[in-house]
């Protein structure tokens, strides 16, 4: 159970942005490409120099070690990156049920990353992220390269994680229908400001 709060967060020509997410909250974020959605997520994960502050359960980002912050407020980038030859080397521990939920067999951990498709890598990257048990999720188009069936599985897994852990989620999506399916609120980012969209 965690709350995430952005207070006057500003980065480059974005913001200042205020936003509050209660535990279990899922906010959909859309906006034209180049409007700064990814930049905003990067600032929340403290990967971009910014002004203003982000709080997790009332604790300011600047007051905890950067690696600790990023392992609690976890960002899933639009394009997944892999640095070891095999899939399994990137995981510490993994819930076998999750693998199954995304349509993988346990042998996937022995696969070579170079032989996985973009979609497989994207789903595995989500599992890699969730297996570190983050307290808040920042998702940058997590279903962009997936077929509808895989996308539905991913949506369901994130939904169950959010409910089980009480984790707030910011979900960047171009797909308005998806935003309405998964999110409790919907915001549009344009000219550096967040506006709540009427649903």
């Amino acid at each position, binding site marked *: 159970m965690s709350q995430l709060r952005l207070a006057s967060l500003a980065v480059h020509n974005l913001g200042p942005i205020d936003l509050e997410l209660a535990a279990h909250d899922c906010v959909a974020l859309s906006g034209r490409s180049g409007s700064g959605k990814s930049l905003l997520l990067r600032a929340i*994960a*403290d990967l971009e120099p910014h002004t203003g502050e982000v709080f997790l359960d009332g604790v300011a980002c600047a007051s905890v070690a*950067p*690696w600790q912050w*990023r*392992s609690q407020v976890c960002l899933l980038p639009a394009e997944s990156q*892999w*640095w070891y030859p095999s899939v399994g080397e990137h995981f510490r521990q993994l819930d076998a049920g999750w693998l199954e939920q995304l349509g993988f067999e346990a042998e996937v951990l022995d696969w070579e990353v170079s032989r996985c498709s973009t979609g497989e890598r994207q789903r595995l990257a989500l599992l890699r*992220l969730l297996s570190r048990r983050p307290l808040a999720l920042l998702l940058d188009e997590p279903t962009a390269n997936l077929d509808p069936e895989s996308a539905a599985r991913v949506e369901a897994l994130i939904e169950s994680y959010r409910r089980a852990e009480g984790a707030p989620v910011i979900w960047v999506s171009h797909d308005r229908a998806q935003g309405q399916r998964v999110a409790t609120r919907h915001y549009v980012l344009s000219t550096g400001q967040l506006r709540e969209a009427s649903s």
Partner: protein
Amino acid sequence: MNLITLTPLDLAVAAVLVVTLAATSYRLRLGVERDLIIATARTFIQLLLIGMVLKVLFENTNLLWVSLMAAVMLAAAGREVMVRQQRRFLGWWGYGLGTMSMFISSFTVTLLVLFTIIGAEPWYTPQYAIPLLGMMLGNTMNGVALGLDRLTQSAWQQRAVIESRLMLGDDSNTAIGEIAREATRIGMIPIINAMAAAGIVSLPGMMTGQILAGAPPLEAVKYQILIMCTITIGTGFATIAAVRIGARHLFDERQRLRLDRLRKPAPGA
């Protein structure tokens, strides 16, 4: 000592041969003739000048002059390290990082050798101090330049991977660990290879020079072994220091990857 003195005419013959090579390069349109002529001219002028400086220096053993000479050599090596990097750090870091690492490592090892092994009287006797430091800096420079160039290039190419690791909660040391280790290895490999091949594939330059100048081979060999060990130590520690400090400076106080601290390579470079 049966030293055969070279006359200006002897050097002129060598120069004419270089001109022949330049002419061939021109005919084959290799396009290196200009660089070749300039580099040869620089070799002649720079070495003759340094020869005269050394002559004066050797005749007056003076700590101040030796220190000044050492400072000039360090400054030149530092500049060389800087210009050899495509994506060097902006501002003073670009110059200071390599220079500082070479200073710490080369000077420490040179002093150690002068005091404990050679033991000349006084310890800063320029015949020993200056050539030893020159060999140290010349090789350390290569290691540091190679290591730093590799570090910044790899960090640039693999920035997405580094940031992905940060996003999963790795600290900056872990996130750049493999890149930094690889860069350090790249910096140290040439000198390790040189030691492994010494005497079998090639006769090292210093030893060759000593033998040509009439020194007994075994004496030349002993000095060569000493020199190779010391430059390996100097290169190794300088490369380790430069890459470690450089890797740290790629991140800010919040462990964000800050590639904006690197210069963009000149177009076409």
